[in-house]
């Protein structure tokens, strides 16, 4: 035990990691006790031998190889990040949703409406990417954080996309019956249902209906963050209303 403590002190002295009083103590012992002096000498030699071990050299291509590896890793990462990127995933989801809707619509029209010449709601079918949104005024993709995209199409459908989930609501109908799980999924947008309808009617040119919807929205969501935007919309509707009456 005593020896172990002695080695610990000697080791600490070697590394210059002793407190002042410990250092003083062990230095005194080295000077007065031959055993301490001998062990200290041995440890110093050992340490010198270890420090003096020659360093091996790396191959001359080390840095070039490293650069290549980093470039490879980066391209893999960027490929992966591009794939998992929100926008790309949207597009992938779009592709899947669009393809499945085209397929379902095609099958549906063939089975149930073989002689019906009325095309199914065109929104999802004509949809190619988020930038082809039919109604641009509402800027739905930017407004709803939790939603991939919301698009009002020319047929009056509100098309909501969230991952692989899709919901289509006819905006010119009141009180749409939407499955509860879908309601939960798209709650944020459905809370703004009247706003969507307002945008839709505005797009259709029925400013009176549009104004009614937007006013209803403000009444239902007095503290909503989009109210400022809607008030601007209302002002523009008022002008448009006056213009249409003037005509």
């Amino acid at each position, binding site marked *: 035990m005593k020896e*172990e403590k002695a080695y*610990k002190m000697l080791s600490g002295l070697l590394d210059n990691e002793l407190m002042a009083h410990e250092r003083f103590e062990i230095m005194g012992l080295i000077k007065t006790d031959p055993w301490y002096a001998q062990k200290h000498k041995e440890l110093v030699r*050992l*340490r010198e031998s270890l420090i003096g071990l020659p360093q091996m050299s790396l*191959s001359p291509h080390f*840095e070039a190889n*490293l650069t290549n590896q980093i470039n490879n890793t980066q391209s893999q990462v960027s490929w992966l990040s591009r794939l998992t990127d929100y926008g790309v995933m949207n597009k992938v989801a779009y592709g899947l949703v669009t393809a499945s809707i085209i397929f379902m619509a095609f099958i549906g029209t063939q089975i149930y409406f073989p002689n019906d010449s009325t095309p199914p709601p065109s929104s999802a079918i004509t949809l190619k990417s988020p930038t082809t949104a039919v109604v641009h005024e509402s800027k739905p993709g930017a407004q709803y954080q939790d939603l991939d995209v919301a698009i009002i199409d020319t047929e009056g459908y509100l098309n909501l996309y969230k991952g692989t989930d899709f919901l289509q609501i006819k905006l010119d109908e009141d009180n749409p019956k939407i499955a509860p799980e879908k309601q939960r999924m798209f709650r944020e947008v459905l809370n703004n249902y009247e706003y969507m309808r307002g945008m839709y009617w505005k797009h259709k040119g029925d400013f009176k209906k549009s104004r009614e919807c937007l006013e209803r929205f403000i009444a239902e969501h007095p503290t909503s963050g989009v109210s400022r935007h809607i008030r601007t919309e209302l002002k523009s509707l008022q002008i448009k209303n006056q213009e249409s009456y003037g005509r």
Partner: protein
Amino acid sequence: MESHLEEESDEILMLSFKSGEEKAFEEIVKRYKTKLFNYIYKYISDVERSEEITQEVFIRVYRSRDRYKIKAKFSTFIYRIALNLAFNEVRNRNRRKTDPHNEFDDKIFNDKIKEHNTPEKLYERKEVEIIVNQEISNLSSKYKDVILLCDIEGLSYKEVAKILNISIGTVQSRLSRGRVRLKQRLENVLNLK
């Protein structure tokens, strides 16, 4: 900017690198490549793999630049990565081992020295280096870790404690015991007495 990089601390270099200065990373590689390579080599005794692992250390540093924060010395951070990778390599090798003669064994090693090395040869520098490296490798991991970091890499107890996630007192004890063991094994080879 480039001319100042050599004078900057490791931590400042990492921050520069984080903010997009690629040259700062090159300087870090320049500073640490040989040290890390030798450090890893002493763990795994395989030149080619040591070089690959050294590259892996730098790749990890490169990837982690966005997350880097100055919490401790950069050397602590990079040696920690190197230690983990070297440790994984040793562990994987031990799992793969089927030939018992491949394993490090004090007795076999000492017998080999007795059989194949005359005293004259033992004092030849290269032979001594091989033996010292081999004896360091033969130490159990807890002693080897502290000896490599303190004696070979010259890190402080505080840094070693952080890298190994142990207390400074434990570093001190392990280092002292490890040195005694190493000293006993190398007494004749290094002519310590």
